[in-house]
């Protein structure tokens, strides 16, 4: 960065002009990022050290009147509802994302070479991820009604008509929520993995086939090594989004019955809007930000290797 001073003035001037323009162009984005990160984080940290809530009647800057040190952070360690919601979220991620990945990969492999009707089939298959998630939630809300089409279809295979109340039964509500997530987001895996598969050199595959490699061998020795980064990107994207799961789920079950589908986002939503214990919510939110940041840094280090 010391080279500027060494350069003759004539060439330095345009470079400076460029740097100035660059600075001005990036300024709005920088301001927006700062506006949504720095100030809210400090505010959150401050509130998290207090017992303040909007019900106290004092404005938030005077939250110090309700100072309680690190009590909120100690509380969250022993908050059973919080931990159950975290495990539930991880369970959804652990079940839904691998299924989405395998289905997406399987479908993508069927789409590598051309066949009649490919474009139409492709367009239809990627449609679910463009449906507004709340609307997708409502679709599955209707499908899983006890008199709805899912039971109607199941009844075709059973002697007695099925009248399972999927969404109000604690043991099936989470299944229904996961099915909806898989329906909506398998297309994303399919789309990304197909883009990666198309990039695998076909002549290598052909040569391997001629030499007698089975499809499974070709997959393991040629396709997967070449696709490793893309697979990681697809998985990382879905894990990140799935941890946040809210819209579809909230429309389908509202987190219920009881707390059977109360994931982390739903739990925070509930204590934000019903319990209104904002000091405590702020502590949970900050803890999540710290854990997720650490997780992201760790993941990036691993990926860089």
């Amino acid at each position, binding site marked *: 960065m010391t080279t500027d001073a060494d350069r003759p003035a004539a060439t330095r001037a345009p470079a400076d002009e*460029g740097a100035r*323009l*660059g*600075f001005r*162009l*990036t300024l*709005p*984005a*920088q301001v*927006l*990022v700062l506006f949504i*990160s720095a*100030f*809210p984080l400090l*505010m*959150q940290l401050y509130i998290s050290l207090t017992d303040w809530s909007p019900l106290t009647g004092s404005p938030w800057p005077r939250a110090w009147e309700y100072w309680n040190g690190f009590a909120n952070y100690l509380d969250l360690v022993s908050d059973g509802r919080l931990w159950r919601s975290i495990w539930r979220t991880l369970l959804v991620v652990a079940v839904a994302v691998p299924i989405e990945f395998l289905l997406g990969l399987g*479908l993508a492999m*069927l789409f590598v070479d051309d066949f009649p009707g490919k474009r139409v089939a492709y367009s*239809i*298959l990627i*449609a*679910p991820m*463009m449906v*507004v*998630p709340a*609307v997708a939630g*409502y*679709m*599955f809300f*209707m*499908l899983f*009604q*006890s*008199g709805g*089409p899912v039971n*109607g279809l199941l009844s075709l295979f059973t002697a007695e008509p099925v009248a399972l109340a999927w969404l109000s039964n604690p043991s099936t509500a989470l299944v229904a929520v996961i099915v909806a997530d898989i*329906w909506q987001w398998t297309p*994303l895996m399919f789309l*990304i993995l197909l883009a990666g598969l198309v990039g695998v050199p076909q002549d290598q595959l*052909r040569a391997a*086939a001629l030499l007698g490699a089975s499809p499974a061998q070709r997959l393991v020795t040629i396709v997967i090594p070449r696709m490793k980064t893309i697979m990681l*990107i*697809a998985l990382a*994207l879905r894990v*990140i989004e799935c*941890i*946040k799961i*809210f*819209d579809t789920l909230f*429309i389908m079950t509202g987190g219920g019955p009881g707390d059977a589908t109360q994931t*982390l*986002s739903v739990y*925070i*939503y509930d204590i*934000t*809007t019903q319990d209104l214990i904002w000091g405590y919510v702020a502590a*949970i*939110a900050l803890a*999540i930000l710290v854990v*997720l940041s650490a997780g992201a840094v760790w993941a990036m280090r691993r990926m860089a290797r």
Partner: protein
Amino acid sequence: MRRSLAFECFRYVAILVALVITLVPILWMVSMAFKPFSEWQATGDALTWIPRDPTLDNFRFLFGQSGSDLIVALDRTAGKPILASLLSASIGTLIAMSAGTAAAYGLSRYGSGANLPLALIQLRLFPPMAVMIPVMIMWAFLGLMDTWWGLALIYGIVTLPFAFWLMKTFFDDMPKEIEEAALVEGCSRWRVLTRVTLPMMAAPLAAASLFVFILNWSDYLVALLLTTRDWVTIPVYMASLSSSMTGQLYGAKAALGLIAAVPPVVLGLMIQRHLVRGLTFGALKQ
């Protein structure tokens, strides 16, 4: 590569199954949207896949016209929520695209704002739920609660990472020679950007804008927390559509769901080619 007949059969069957599973939930909603009140709750053997008596009553009902066999009336019609969604999503897109495009260009050509790529990825990583308390406090303080412009501002920030990353990869892909030639000709840097670069980027700009618009249009959680009555968006309004007399207003909700679902699906199919790039923050191109 020549494939066996068995493989071709398997392929068609598998794709057919996937297509059916993809389409059934969508078609059920479409069907429900055109069902008269009497068929909403039909169950068991009476389950109707295709409305026996197709009607537009559900759409009429949403916009406040009676004439259906539904006795209840809405205290608010769907018009305002649709307007709220349109306004907040499009102005939010405008904010994200302006700030994002400018920053992407600044970084791509002049190396300014080197912190932005990572900062914006981080912004995307965090669950919105985890920053909503300060946002709600700030929005209340700034008088932005329950307004479409308040929503537009937060949408602009939430989708800024996508706008920035998409435009950055488009600028990185664009050959610099033309701009350099214009500079040598004596064009100012600003004029190069507005008269040379941006017109050349019209198609990518349009694709990125549509992509960002879809994301903004799809929001539910943020609007749920930041709007209460006057400017609720379609998803929030939809969730509130139920009445003590009829319970869930299945048909009306389905009709509204259809109205909400059509624009993003149509726009999304228009920008198919760019979807992978957009969704992976430009890491992957198709």
